[in-house]
């Protein structure tokens, strides 16, 4: 490595560290949002790294049924005497994967077609908005439930795609109105006058100005996907095997564990895991707003 190369590398690392520190500092400006952010990071680490440290023992252990929390079992044991904490650690990955993929896909659909509707206008706009209005009106969850009756949803990716296909309308409307207002700005009008192509205008001129909006929407789309996904699994409409929080809730419910006083740790662990994760995601959007919206910062 030459000296020049080493310097560039050092600069690159320095820049990265610098922007990372700035990002964290901005995130920390909003206390509630920052706590949400930390909890989200915590859940992601728990789901991705946790399984390597906590062993999942799926064997039935009759002598250990419904044990209260102890040093050995942090969250107690379930109806088969298995450790609940291990199930919580191993049960997050599926949920996070489906939520992230579904959120990403639906955001992509909403941004692409919302921007297209606003920029092209005319017939394209009317067609897109009519479809959006219709999909928005059809109650999403019953439609998902009905579809689950036809399609065998035993693949996580397929489930994520299905969730994404139905959950873009609200975001699309918001993106469209944002783009409609951005469209009037000088630099976009200039790009249009120079005939720089629709793709350039959408991705290079308009999108960067909407990043805050898009990232916040992605976060909210993830909460929507978690709602629908856990709901479908809970109702037994998506035959999911293995261990995840939703399956834990479903088992507790179907086997009547919920009506058994000792089962409280078993039923509440996944319920609270999902509830806290959802709450953390929503809180995090407050900090994200501060990071991306300089106007909010000025006042503080």
């Amino acid at each position, binding site marked *: 490595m030459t000296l020049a190369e080493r310097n560039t590398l050092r600069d690159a690392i320095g820049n990265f560290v610098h922007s990372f520190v700035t990002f964290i500092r901005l995130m920390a400006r909003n206390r509630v949002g920052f706590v949400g952010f930390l909890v989200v990071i915590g859940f992601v680490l728990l789901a991705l790294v946790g399984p390597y440290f906590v062993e999942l023992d799926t064997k039935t252990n009759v002598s250990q049924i419904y044990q209260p929390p102890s040093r050995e079992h942090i969250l107690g044991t379930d109806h088969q005497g298995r450790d609940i904490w291990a199930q919580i650690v191993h049960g997050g990955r599926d949920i996070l994967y489906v939520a992230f993929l579904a959120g990403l896909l639906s955001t992509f659909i909403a941004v692409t077609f919302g921007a297209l509707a606003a920029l092209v206008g005319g017939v394209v706009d009317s067609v897109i908005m009519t479809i959006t209005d219709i999909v928005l*009106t059809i109650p999403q969850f019953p439609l998902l*439930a009905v579809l689950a009756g036809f399609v065998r949803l035993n693949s996580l990716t397929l489930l994520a795609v299905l969730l994404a296909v139905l959950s873009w309308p609200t975001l699309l409307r918001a993106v469209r109105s944002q783009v409609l207002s951005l469209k009037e700005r000088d630099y976009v009008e200039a790009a249009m006058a120079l005939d720089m192509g629709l793709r350039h205008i959408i991705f290079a001129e308009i999108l960067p100005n909407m990043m805050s909006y898009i990232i916040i929407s992605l976060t909210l789309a993830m909460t929507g996907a978690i709602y629908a996904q856990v709901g479908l699994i809970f109702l037994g409409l998506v035959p999911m095997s293995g261990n995840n929080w939703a399956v834990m809730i479903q088992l507790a419910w179907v086997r009547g564990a919920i009506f058994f006083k000792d089962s409280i740790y078993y039923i509440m662990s996944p319920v609270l895991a999902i509830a806290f994760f959802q709450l953390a995601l929503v809180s995090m959007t407050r900090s994200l707003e501060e990071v991306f919206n300089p106007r909010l910062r000025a006042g503080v």
Partner: protein
Amino acid sequence: MWSRIIRNFWVRRGAKALFTVFVVVSLTFFLVRLMPANPVEVYINSLIEQYGIPYDEAKNQAAALFSIDLDAPLYIQYLGYIKNLLHGDLGTSLISAGTPVSAIIVRFLPWTIFSVGTGLLFSFSLGIILGMVMAYRRESLIDHVLSALASVLSSVPNYLIAMMLVVFLGVQWKLVDIAAMRGSMSPGMQPGLNLAFIKDALYHASLPIVTYIITTIGTWMLTMKSSTISTLGEDYVVVAKARGLPERRITLAYVGRNASLPLFTQLTIAIGFIVGGSLLIESIFVYQGIGLVLLRSITQRDYPVMQGVFLIITISVIVANLLADILYSRLDPRIKLGTGE
């Protein structure tokens, strides 16, 4: 000229609702006919396998149940399906053979409309009041407490709240008798306009209603708070204050009315969400509403019921949205000027 513009808006709004109904009708038809597991074929095969009925007879039975002529080309079947729908014929149930789907809907739909409607009415009005209180007492203790509560309530999925109600109220603290509250009314109760029936209906619907209120009120509170804060800065409020109008009048007629307008657009989305969520809530509390019927028809593969109930749920949401829009335009005359959204 004025009446023409108003009529024009309603014509357009009504046409939009009708068009949506039409799309959903078509969607459910093609969903059932073209999906990989075509339920008509599945049903015919199950008849042949289970009862050893010859193919033609099984096909005739299936055709009668789904109210479609299976030999006709698809578009004729489609037209026939629409014709039947217009006559209120949604086919008959496969599981409880001979029961018309329309009869099932008439029996169960009112319970869902009753519980969801009551919950929404309460959460919407309470949310508006609390939101205004928060805006007027900005940065006070009550504002901070209510804001935190609202954020928590609006982010936790409604079925998890419902479960916690069962776990804590019903099982851990034994404050309510979950088992006795199942169903939409006590056995032997006769529906009618008397106090005993109304009390019984409210008793059985109370947990779903409480869940709908708890899980939607947060959004109303937060939206109303921010909307009120921005309304308080409007010129007409400042002028009204300068004119020395009574505080009460300013709060209700000037601030409250104008600040609540943005909430009506959210109301249309919330209706669909709550009705959709009734599947989960009714299943948790075993409340005999339309959501529970839809769920059962899906798990039992009772396709005519599933198709009909899904259609009716969607139409109810479309009609409710139309009503919300009418209410909105009553409150905000600007909406009638024909600018649409």
